[in-house]
Each structure stands twice: as structure tokens, then as C-alpha cells.
């Protein structure tokens, strides 16, 4: 079935957020997405770290301001870690 536009957007947004946090905030690739983990959501935690770095409101959610920064052209060196 064709994917609903909203679902497609959501998938693209998640992909953008994940790759941004993997590239620049040391988010580990989730090799077992089918296993439901308990406790902290690493993606939300890394998102908070990125929002704090850029002086955005720390929501842990990919809000508009956060996505706007993620789409900006930038340096490939990570913002945190090695």
C-alpha cells in the first residue's frame, strides 16, 4: 500500500534525527530495533544534549527549531566526544 504522506514525513524526520545524532552526538546505532528496551530513550537523551548545545529549548523532541538547526549545512566533526 502507498505510505500516507504524514507517515512518510515522520519516517524521514526520524531518519534525519537519527543520522544527525549518530554523526555528531555519538548516538550508537540501534542494532536490535525490534527489542523494546526499558528505561531511558537514548535518542531522546542525545536530542536533549544537542538542544542544550545549540541553546534550544530542551524538549527531547524533534520540534521545528531543532529540525531547522539539523538541516543547516555544517562541519562534519562531531560536537561531542572524539
Amino acid at each position, binding site marked *: 500500500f502507498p505510505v500516507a504522506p504524514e507517515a512518510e514525513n515522520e519516517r524521514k524526520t526520524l531518519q534525519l534525527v537519527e543520522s544527525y545524532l549518530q*554523526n*555528531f552526538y555519538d548516538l550508537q546505532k540501534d542494532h536490535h530495533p525490534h527489542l523494546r528496551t526499558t528505561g531511558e530513550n537514548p535518542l531522546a537523551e542525545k536530542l536533549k544534549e544537542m538542544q542544550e*548545545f*545549540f*541553546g534550544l529549548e530542551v524538549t527531547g523532541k524533534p520540534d521545528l527549531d531543532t529540525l531547522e*538547526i539539523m538541516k*543547516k*549545512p*555544517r*562541519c*562534519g*566533526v562531531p*560536537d561531542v*566526544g*572524539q
Partner: protein
Amino acid sequence: YVFTTGNPKWKRNHLTYRILNYTPKMRQADVEKAIQKALSVWSNVTPLRFEKVDNKEADIMISFAYRDHYDNSPFDGPNGQLAHAFQPGEGIGGDVHLDEEEAWSKDGRGYNLFIVVAHELGHSLGLSHSNDPGALMYPTYSYTDPKEFLLPQDDIDGIQAIYGQSSAAVQPTGPVTPQACDPNLTFDAIATLRGEIIFFKGRYMLRKHPARAETELNFISLFWPKLPSGIQAAYENVENDEVLLFKEDKYWVLRGYDIAPGYPKPIYRLGFPKTVKRVNAAYNDETTGKTYFFIADRYWRYDENKKSMDHGYPRKIVSDFGKIGRVDAVFQKDGYVYFFHRTTQFQYDPRAKQIVRQMKSISWFNC
């Protein structure tokens, strides 16, 4: 500023660099000039010296690379990641890689090579990303006219903390990023723009939207790359949906959000005498259609309908506006005129012809 983890640094102040290849998008001479200028950004403020070598291994190897270039950090095509560099060290240490698929340029089009290389060299020398939005080491790209570029104070402090100060008799200093709630904050110019208030300061603009609590800080060049920094006066002509911006003896017109073609024009077209070299502040009175220009201790009045200066001007500011002194910036909102001089702000009622309130310059920022 942030040091790279482990505080890596070069043990020598005399470093070599080599340009391994060139992009077909720029003349070779322009590439070399951009890289030389980028290196001088750091050598101007430290004891570091850079020597160009051609046929041997250099400390800093600079190259344009395409997608996967075997350093575990593949490039991603146009936009996105523009370049990366490696911390000080042997081998790949210090090297700068530039994404060949970017639209490299020597001006405001595409991505300015000088700005990107200067940033990457910060990594080559041991700096990490700074969270100061005005710093060169801030991770996202922002254009500044290379002719106007000054290394910000945050970056100077960082690199000098690693390599020490410059040997120059007078230590170079750089622009500091304005903080909206800094009680000492003063403004170069202020204008309303379609319901928002734009505060100009150096190469920055602080943007206050009535519906948003926070204040947004941007480079002027982010919206208007052709505008210079250091705007000295600005006003909105609400009727024409225009904003006029002044610097020295020139002015630009924004129509909507775009700079109108054919500008800048000399301010003398508005009727100023040649003795006037710059405008300090300006506002347009929506009710009367008159625009007031403040210069030193005098002001002129311009009739927007007749498109000419009214007769009988200039007049002394003190004779008609009371003790507001010199004017750095001014704007009108909801019938009141707000005059700014240094860190003081006066709310003036043009109907009663008197100052009704005195505030701090940062009163608009919900501090």
C-alpha cells in the same frame, strides 16, 4: 570555546601545509588565497606560523574529497556536511578535507571556502566546536563577507589558551556575541519589520516577535548577505511595506524581506546636505507620514509623500524632543517613539510632546 578531548596540540609553532588538489569550481589562485587568509586568521593571534610546501608530507594536508575517501567519515554530497578536519598529530592529524560536491566560492554564493577552511583549521590546531553562536568554531555554516571578517573573541581566547598570545605589541581583540539580557547592551539601529522588532548590533540582529517570548539572534548576513554589518540607522515605512537601512552615506531598501535592486544609493538623494556623512537613527511616523532622521544633536524631517525634506530643518533635538541627548537608535510602536542612547531608553509621546517613561535598553527582551 572547547578544547578537543585530550588537549592535543602541535609541539611546534612553525607548521607546514600543502594543498593536495583543487576544486574546478574556483580559480586555483582564489583557492590558494582563501587558504592563506584562513591560516592568517589563526597566525594573527598566536605565535603560530604556516609555511606552504608542495612536494612532501606537510603537517596540514588540505584536499577536496568525494563521498567515501577512506577516512571512515564519508561525505554526503551537496549541503549537509561541508568539510571535516583532524586534531593535531602525525599522519592524518591536522589534515583538512573539503567535500568536493559543495558549491565552493570566494564570495557569498554557495559556500565561502575561506570561512569553511578557517573553521576546519581550528580543529587542525586543537579546538572543538563552540556553542557561542557568533564563534568561528560554531558547528553550522554562516556567511560573513571575508573583507569584513574578524576572528571572534571566543575563538581568540580558545586558540591563545593552547598556543599563547601573538607577539604583536597590541593584542588583537575580536567581536563579542551580543547577549540579549546583558545590561550593558547598546544598539546600532532598530526598526520594526512587519510586526517584529529588529535590533541591529554589529554583524548581528536580535529579532523580537511579539508572540514569542524568546529573542532570536542571527547574523544580518543570514537573511541579507548583501547588507554590510554595522547598520547605523533603520526605519520601516509601513505604508510602503519597506524598511530603509543606513550605513555611512549609503542606504538600502528592503521590500518585504528582500533587498530592492539598484541599492545602495547615496543618502543625498533624500535631500541631506553633503556635510552629512552618516545617519545615527531614524523612524517613520505612521500617522503623519513624516520620517525623522537624527544626526548628532540635530534632526531632519522628511515627507514620504512629497519625497523631499521639509523646510526649516535641521532643528535641535533638544528643542523638540526634550532631554533625550544623542540618539543611537529609535523606532515607533503603537503610537509611542522609543529613543535609545547607550543603555538608556526613553518612551516619548509625540502627541503630548513629552517623555513618559525611562527604561533600560534591554527592556524588550523579557530578561
